[in-house]
Structures are given as C-alpha cells and as structure tokens.
C-alpha cells in the first residue's frame, strides 16, 4: 500500500525538522560580556550560601557598605544557595541567573574554571592593576584556580580543628588535647561512658564519616595526602598514606564499640545546626568542626567549658601537629553575566577590601582571606578562634586539589570511605586501586 506510506513520511518531515531545530540550538546561547560601564546604574544578582540569621545580617551589612562606595550598583542577594543550584542555574542561563556567584567549598573550582562557567578573573585583576600574589596567600590562590585559570577568588577561609569538652577531660583525668593518633584513640576510649544497658552516654569521639562535618577528606587532611600525580592520575593506592588513614579510622571505630553501635548512636543526634547538636548536648567529648562553630557554641551557652585544638596527626608525622583541613568560600563572576565589570566591582570589594574582609570575618567568625586582613589589628582574637587562625596559617595544612569534574572524586572517595568504615573492604590495597581506577575513569568521561 504505497499511499499511506508516503503520507506517513510526510508526517515525519515536520517532526524531524523540529527535532533538528531543537538539537542544533543546544549550545548554551546565553553568553555574557564584559563591555558594560561599571559606573552606570545597574542591578546585580548575587547568590551566596549563608543562611543563619547572623550571617545574613552580616552579608546585608557588607552590601550596604558596598552601596556607599558604588551608589550606582544595586545588589539583589539570594542566600542559602548550594553548588548544585549554582551549577544548574548557570547551565540553564536565562534572566534570573546570577551575576556574582559564590560557593562554600573549593570542591568545584576545577569544574567552574575548566568549563568556563565562571569567568576568568585575571583580565579584571589586570585592569584594576592588582597583583594577586601580593594580596592573597599562596595556598588560597591555589584552590581558586585550575590549570592556571583564576576563575574565583577567596572570600574568607575555613579551617578545621577539634572542639573538646574541658569538663569531660578533667573528669577523665586528661590534661591536654591529644596530638597523635594513638593518643587520640586512648583519649577517645577513656572519654567514652556507657549507661547501665550498655548504650553510650558520652562518646569520646564519633569517627563515623557521615556525622556532621566528618567527611573523610577532612580527617584525611591530617595525613597530608597527595591525590593526583603529575599527569593528573589518581594515586591513592600508592604509598601507604591512604591505607594507614583507613586502618587508623577503622581501629578507632572498633576501639569505640564497633560500626553498628556507633551508627545507631549517631541516629540519636539532633540536627547539626540545632540546639540538639551532639557536641552541644554533651553526647560527644571531642568533635571535629570548622572555626565558625565557636560562635554558635558561645550563643547557645552549653552547660560545660570547652576548648579548641588542632586535630591530631599520625604518629609518624608528629612534627606536622598543628595542621588541618583548609577550605573556604570562593566568589566569582558568572560567564553569562552581562554586567561583568560591575560584577567585578562587587567581587573585588568582597574579597580584597581589607576593611570589609576584616569586618565580615569578625561578624561571622571566619578566617580572613587576604594577607592584609590576617595582619589587621582589628581582627577578633579570642583564644578559641586563635587556634583556627594558626591552623589556617600552618604551612602543612591541606586543601583539596581542583579537578575537571569538580568534587566528583571527593564523592567517590566518600563512598569508598563509607564502605571501608563499615568493614566492607576486606583488602584495602585492592580497594584503593579500584578507587583510583574509578576516579580516572570518571575524569576521562568528563573530558571532551
């Protein structure tokens, strides 16, 4: 029957035409530009991750200070934005997409730089006559660029250390925070108290990787690992750093009662940001966290005295004591922004204006991210905070290397760590080789 067939073909023509039209138009059409006049009246969209009341107030104050310097630029800020959102919105483009973007971690900088989602800032730095090496500490510049492309600048930094319950230490007869991993394990066991029915009343330390800020990359920083070799290949199975790390954590889990009971105890903890935070309610005697937690502890007035210290280091690296995991908020300009010069004014103010950086750091209790601000006499210096400043300045502190697909390798590392802590990786060396292979495969799949 030739007739219906021709007709059917005819019906296919518009279908295919539409399909072709839609497919060919798929490259993102919304490209921005940097030929706007930064002194002309303009409204900028600024996305950030801060959500707590004091933080939002601090960011609003910062914007008010900026407005005094640049009355022509209005800033519309949106808080509580995660990287997932930034990632999606910048890909989608459109009128609501932000001009100035920020991220709470350095995990995705590699992806932002290599894909071009965040604009290269070097031309702007040059235009403004700024020498970035003189303004920002080297390590912070490192984590805001990828393969030489500076697509972000540090907007305050975070360092991770230990919070400990001084009353519990006194009761257990421990005089100072542990410095090596074996000291740490002994202390954690001594600080652990149980109830009559065998469950925990107080745990010395919660080693499980899913607790609050405990993700494995943070604790692993105490070992000073190298994630990639010169060719960008994952090298966790080489040497025994990673193996020692996972063995130490697993020993800690076993010494404290085993993975099952610990995980069960973890499900009795309240939300991290609430009054039922496990360190706050006395369920944990030692706790790994970032410098900002001090402000929250002060505000909620716990029923015990607390102190801060660097996290312990492996026994064979005792000389590295004082190091910790470093990360930070980073800020940049969206590739799709049509007001990139105006956006640069805001980025520059937030990241490099000494007075602003100090005021903002004090307000939200973060580590300042410029050399001048770190030396400023106006910087708050209570002893609890001092610990974290020292960790941030420690030469052997560690941040995560950027990668073409952002934090994907960190996600793989975490998934491996979850398996390992549960005792599901019988042969660590073999497992780590598998992890290396996986990270390399994923990296390859992310390249053009």
């Amino acid at each position, binding site marked *: 029957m030739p007739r219906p067939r021709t007709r059917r073909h005819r019906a296919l023509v518009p279908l295919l035409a*539409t399909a072709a039209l839609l497919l060919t138009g798929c*490259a993102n059409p919304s490209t921005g530009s940097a030929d706007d006049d930064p002194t002309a009246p303009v409204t900028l969209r600024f996305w950030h991750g801060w959500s707590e009341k004091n933080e939002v107030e601090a960011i609003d104050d910062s914007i008010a200070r900026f407005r005094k310097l640049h009355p022509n630029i209005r800033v519309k800020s949106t808080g509580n934005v*995660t990287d997932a959102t930034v990632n999606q919105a910048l890909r989608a483009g459109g009128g609501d997409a932000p001009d100035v973007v920020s991220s709470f*971690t350095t*995990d995705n900088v590699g992806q932002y730089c290599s894909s071009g989602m965040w604009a290269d800032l070097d031309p702007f730095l040059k235009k403004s006559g700024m020498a970035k090496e003189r303004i920002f500490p080297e390590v912070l510049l490192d984590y805001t660029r990828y393969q030489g492309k500076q697509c972000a600048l540090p907007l305050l930094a975070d360092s991770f250390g230990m919070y400990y319950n001084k009353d519990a230490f006194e009761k257990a007869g421990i005089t100072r925070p542990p410095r090596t991993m074996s000291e740490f394990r002994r202390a954690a066991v001594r600080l652990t108290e149980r109830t009559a029915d065998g469950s925990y009343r107080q745990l010395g330390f919660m080693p499980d990787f*899913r607790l609050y800020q405990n993700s494995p990359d943070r604790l692993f920083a105490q070992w000073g690992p190298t994630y990639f070799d010169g060719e960008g290949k994952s090298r966790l199975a080489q040497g025994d750093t990673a193996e020692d790390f996972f063995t130490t954590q697993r020993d800690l889990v076993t010494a404290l009662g085993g993975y099952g009971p610990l995980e069960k105890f*973890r*499900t009795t903890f309240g939300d991290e940001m609430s009054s039922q935070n496990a360190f706050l309610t006395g369920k944990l005697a030692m706790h790994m966290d970032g410098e900002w937690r001090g402000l929250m502890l002060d505000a909620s007035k716990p029923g015990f005295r607390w102190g801060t210290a660097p996290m312990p280091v492996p026994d064979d690296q005792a000389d590295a004591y004082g190091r910790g995991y470093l990360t930070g908020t980073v800020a940049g300009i969206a590739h799709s922004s049509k007001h990139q010069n105006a956006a640069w004014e805001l980025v520059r103010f937030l990241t490099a204006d000494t007075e602003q950086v100090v005021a903002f750091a004090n307000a939200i209790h973060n580590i300042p991210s410029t050399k001048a601000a770190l030396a400023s006499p106006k910087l708050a210096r209570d002893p609890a905070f001092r610990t974290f400043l020292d960790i941030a300045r420690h030469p052997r502190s560690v941040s995560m290397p950027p990668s073409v697909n952002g934090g994907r390798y960190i996600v793989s590392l975490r998934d491996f760590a979850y398996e390992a802590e549960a005792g599901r990786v019988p042969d660590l060396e073999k497992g780590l080789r598998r992890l290396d292979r996986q990270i390399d*495969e994923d990296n390859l799949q992310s390249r053009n």
Partner: protein
Amino acid sequence: MATPPATRPAPELRRRHTRERLRTLGFLSPWLIGFTVFFGYPLLATVYFSFMHYNQIQAPSFVGLRNWTYVLDRMPLFGPALWNTLWLVVVMVSLRVVFGLGIGLLVTRIKTGAGFFRTAFYLPYLAPPVTATVAFVFLLNPGTGPVNEALGALGIPAPNWFNDPDWAKPSLVLLSLWGIGDLMVIFMAALLDVPREQYEAAELDGAGVLARFRYVTWPAITPIVMFAVVTGVVQTMQYYTQALVAGKLASGVSIGPGSVIQPGYPDGSTLTVPQLVYSLGFQNFDTGAACVLSLVLFAIAMAVTSLLMRRSTGLLSAED
C-alpha cells in the same frame, strides 16, 4: 496524488469523509501535539545525546560509543541500580498484591464498624509519598524511633531499618504495604462482584475455605490480579521518590553546600535506575551517560510491559 478507488461514491461523500477526518484530527490534536513534542522529540533527542559528550555548558561533541561503554562497563553503580530495581519489582509487587488481596478479603468480611476500618486501611494511601517516607524514616529511626523503642521494651532485637543495607529495601516494602489502599479498593470491588450463589453452591458441594477460594474466588478475580501486577510493575520500575527521600533523610548527612550526595544510602542499597538517571544528568551533568541509561530503562520498560500486556489484554479491549 490520491485517486479514489472507482467504487467510491460522489464527491459529496468524499467531502464528508474529509470533514470527518478533520474533525477527528481536531479532537485528537492536543494529544497529537503533546505526543510529538513531549514524547517523540525527547525520545529522538535521547538517542542523539547518547552518542554525545555534553556537559550542558560547552557545545556537544560526538564521542561514538564512549557513553555506552562507560555506563554498561566502566560505571560500577549500574549493576547495583539494576539489581535493586529488579529486586523491588519482584518483591514489592508480589507482596503488595498478596497483602492487598488479604486486606480486601478481610474488609469484605468485617461486620461491625466496616466504615471505620475501610477508611483506616485506605487513608495511608493518600499520604503524599514524601510525607509518608519522612514519617517512616522517623518511625523506624534506629536510635529514637517509636518502633524500635517499642520493640526494645518488648525485648525483641530491632533491626536498623533504613540505616542497614540489608534492611533498607525491606523497609521500603513495608512503607509500600502501608499505602495499600489502592489495591484494597479494587480487590474489594472485585470480591464483592463474585456472585454469592457460587459460594453457596460450592459450600453445598462441601468445599472448604481454601477450596472455595481456589475454585470460586480466584477465577473471578484473576483479571484484577493481573491488572494489579501490570500497574505494580510499571510503577515500581519508576520507583524514585520514596527511595531517594528515605536514603537522604536516613543517612543524616546534612545537605553539603559543595559537593553532591550520591543517592542510594546505605551502601547503594536503595539506588534505583531512575535515581541513577537523575544523578548522572543533574548531579554530574553527564548528559550522554544519563541518556544511555534512559534508553536502557526505556528498553526494559517496553519489554516488560509488552510481555505483561500480551498476558492481560484487558487494557485495550472493550471497543464499544
């Protein structure tokens, strides 16, 4: 092009034919457009993208079969996701049908307070999936959940439910049994449709409870059971919301501001194929790999439904 066959009558009738065809097209037009734009096009595009590297920011580039080999061979999550989906299809669907039939039988026998019981059994089905899942994660929370508190008080060893890789899927099945209302209603209707006389006749022949079920009830409700199985399989292949929400909430990992949380907690035991499509497409922005997985899901769904549809032709029959 078309010369009408010689037997075709006068032009007037032909005009009427054209008019009728246009009318039919007019009535069908919303769906014809919808089908082309929201089904035909995306399906073609999925095939196209499965051969492309496209991170949704740089222009797509042709990579041949790389995405296919990556998903099928070099991505370790594919196997577990497929296994979990099949596990759920087999276990969840069969248990739901058996439990739904049981509750249906029970409801038809209740004499006192039938209205109350029917509503009580039905209500959980109405709870939106996200709310029901959030509630169950709380109820089954190993440390403080009421279920384990109660089991503990009775001295029964309690599992860690959503927090144990061996128990997470069974917990999801439990959640699905809680929302059995839909099956209960259709089974109830089917059971009430079985003529009473047949039971009485069977009883007179000396048939016991089991024999009556085997020879009277079962033949009468087989089409409905088949229907429940087909729709159950279709729904379970799409299983997404409950598994994702349960995994995320039970893991207790706060939403990382930076990197994403891989679905499937604990240890990938609740990762289903649809979740993996989401994860690849919207967490990794690996459009190509996500489209490959979409096509795999499409192929499985079509194969299973055509197989099941052949066995239960009821859906398309009843012309008028």
